Every structure is written in C-alpha cells, then in structure tokens.
C-alpha cells in the first residue's frame, strides 16, 4: 500500500475551537495539544483523506484574503508537523480504491 498525498486527520484528535477561530488540537490518547490559528483550523477541517494538499491550498486561497504564494509550503509543513506528532496521517491507496 502506498501513501497518497491526501492528509487525513486522526479521528481521535479533538478540535477545541476557541474565540476568534483560534483552536487547540488535543490528542486524548497522548495528552499532546497544539494551538493553531484560523488557517490551521481551516486546513484541519479539510483533512478528510479525499482532498490533496493542492486541493486544500486552493480552497484556503479562496477562503482567506491575501494568501501568500508560500501557502503551499507552509501548509505542507503544518501537515507534516501534525503527522510527525500523531495528529494526522496520509490516506493509503488501497483505502481510496476501496472507497
């Protein structure tokens, strides 16, 4: 099975939305928590295993004004950080095929 470029949020992770669209991502299995800004929240909500990183970036550019050209790189780094810390993974080919 190969990994796709479609990030998927760990379903056990809790998105705790605070005021002004800032949020905390909390993994109850590890007690790890990470704060994120409104763009991060928007990315998280799109990490459904169906959208690719490019799809997510494209949607983010439509949702937020003045999205910089470096958005893809920054969002990719954000997703990688989430993946490294068990908050997210990359969807597998077989699961896509089965779907």
């Amino acid at each position, binding site marked *: 099975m190969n990994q796709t470029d479609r990030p998927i949020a760990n379903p056990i992770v*809790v998105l705790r939305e605070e005021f002004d669209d800032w949020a905390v991502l909390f993994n*109850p*299995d590890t007690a790890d928590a990470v704060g994120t800004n409104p763009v991060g929240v928007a990315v998280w909500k799109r990490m459904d295993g169906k959208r690719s990183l490019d799809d997510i970036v494209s949607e983010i550019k439509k949702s937020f004004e003045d999205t910089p050209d470096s958005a893809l790189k920054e969002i990719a780094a954000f997703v990688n950080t989430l993946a490294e810390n068990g908050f997210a993974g990359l969807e597998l080919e077989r699961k896509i095929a089965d779907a």
Partner: protein
Amino acid sequence: MRAPRSLTLEITARCNLRCRYCYFFSNPAVEYRDLPTDEWLQFFDELGSLGVMKVTLAGGEPFIREDLSVLLAGIVRNRMRFSFLSNGVLIDDEIAAFIAGTGRCEYIQVSVDGSCAEVHDACRGQGSFEGAIRGIRTLQRHRIGVGVRVTINRKNVHDLENIAHFLLDEMGLSDFGTNSAGYMGTCCINADDVMLNIEERKEAMATLLRLTVKYAGRISSEAGPLTDVRMWRRMEEARAEGKPAFHNGGRLTGCGCTGNKIAVRTDGAIVPCNMLAHVELGRINHDSLAEIWLNSTVLNQLRNRHTIPLAGFEFCAGCSYIPYCTGNCPGLAYTITGQIDHPSPDACLRRFLEEGGTIA
C-alpha cells in the same frame, strides 16, 4: 474560551469512610444523592461535543460506584482524559486493569495522612491506612500514575518527617503533595480537633521547608502551610524592601479557576467549583453548559472578582501587605466570613503574625 477545558465531577455522594475534615460532607447546600448512569453518560456526550479535554472524578469516593467502568467508557468514547480523587481503599486489580487499559488516566490521587495506621486512621477511620497503601500498590502494579496528597491536621503535624520518609524512601514515590484541613464541610464541625492552631501551623511550615531541602523537588503544594509560608516570605521580603506591588497584588486575584474549569455536584448541580458548592449555576442535561460558561451572570461576577481592591475591605484596613496580597481562596472566604467577595482570613499574613505566627 468557548467551553471549560476541564471539569471536576462529584460522581457519588457515597463514601466508605467518614474523614473528620472532609470538605464534601456536612454541607447544607448539597443534596446528597447519586445520579443514575444514563444522566452522566448523556452529560459526557455534551462535554465531548464541547471539546472538554479532561474530567476529574471525585465524590464521595468515586470507586464506590458499581457502574464506574461504564462511566469511564463514556468518558473515553467522548475523547476525554480523566483523573480521580480517592481514598484508595476500594481500588482493586479488576478496576485498575480496566483503567490502565483505557490509556486515558492522567493520575489517581490517593490521600495518605500518616506514616502508619495509628496516625492516618486517627482522622480517616480504622483500616483506612492499610486500604490506601494497598490501593497505591495496586495502581503501581498496573503502572497507573499515583499522586499522593497529605492533608496536614492536628493528628499528623508531628509526623511529617516520617510521612516524607515513608512515601519517598520506603514506598518509592517520586513526589507527593500537601495541603491542610480547611474550614469547610465536616471540618467545620470538628475544627478544634483537626485544624492546625498557630503553633502547629508554624511547626508545619518549618518542617515542610526543611523537608523540601532534603527532598528537593519532591514535595509540592497548591494550598496549606507550604504554600502559605512560601507566599508570605515573598510578601514580607517585598514589604520590607519597599518593592512595587506584585502584578496580581492588591485585589481579589487569588482564584483563577473559573477561567478554564467548572464543577458538577453529586446531585447534578453545575457549580463554579467544589469549594463553592452552594453557588448553583444550573443543572446538567437541563441547562446548556456552554450557555452557562459564556453567559452566567454569577460566573462572570466571579471572574471579575479580580477587579475588587483589597483596600476597600475593613478587614484589610491599614495592612502594609495589601500590594502583595491576592485575598486567596473565595471558597474559604465564604465559609469563614459568609462572603465570596472577601479576602480569606485563613490566608491573612497580618492576622497570622498578630496571633503569634512567624515565618522566619
């Protein structure tokens, strides 16, 4: 924040012990009854939908509930972590294995008030020491985090050195916490027998300071003699040197609990804190927790308590410690003075010194 990060839930009004300084029992404001399983499970679903991260299960004795594993499964299902406040006696291998299996337990706090049965049982009842130590050993076997809390009182104040040796050297615990019997609940009835007098407070402070040197980093406190003496020494130093006011000094800033947590009484009443059990904000499964959290007038008044200057209280008139004082716990302020918006006399340095206390 839109919802509390954590809650303390008194899941039962029953207890296998009757400790002489229990804050929970003998409170006329509380209806001592247990909610059925379904009521808690429904509430856990609400907590899950709000993104609550952690619940602390208390009582009464939480391990007395026959449906405890069902409740824990509800907590886990709603993606929360949990901890316990317990006397340890009812913890057995079966429930410990279940708890360990969830992977969600932060710690279980067990009360140990003596280095031996004679001291511990003096306030907690015959057989309770043996049961508490057995419970701790059971938790350790299952690799569940144990936090021991020593409640300092008249019966154990002379045993603190032995307690530290027993817990840290003999039992091999990494650390333990301390507080003291406070004027709440059953303690109000037995105050003369269990609460420290001035001389005993002095002794407790001196002993604890000595022990924190001997066992560096292994004895902690959030209230009680160790917290008092550390805070009071800072205040006295600041006053003597004419330092500027502390950033949180001079106002009722002593409690920040209402900023990120809330509590539920055993009868389902939502209250700001277990120490303010008479302040009913609503009922679980009848009132929206999010609505209470955001819009309760009473809760918001408590949050604004930090704006009330100590200089306005007759109790504080002429006190040179005002710029460095926070007024401390509103729960104790209420039980001692009948007012929440009042500094707690129990934490008053000036009064302590006037009554013969020393902090040198």
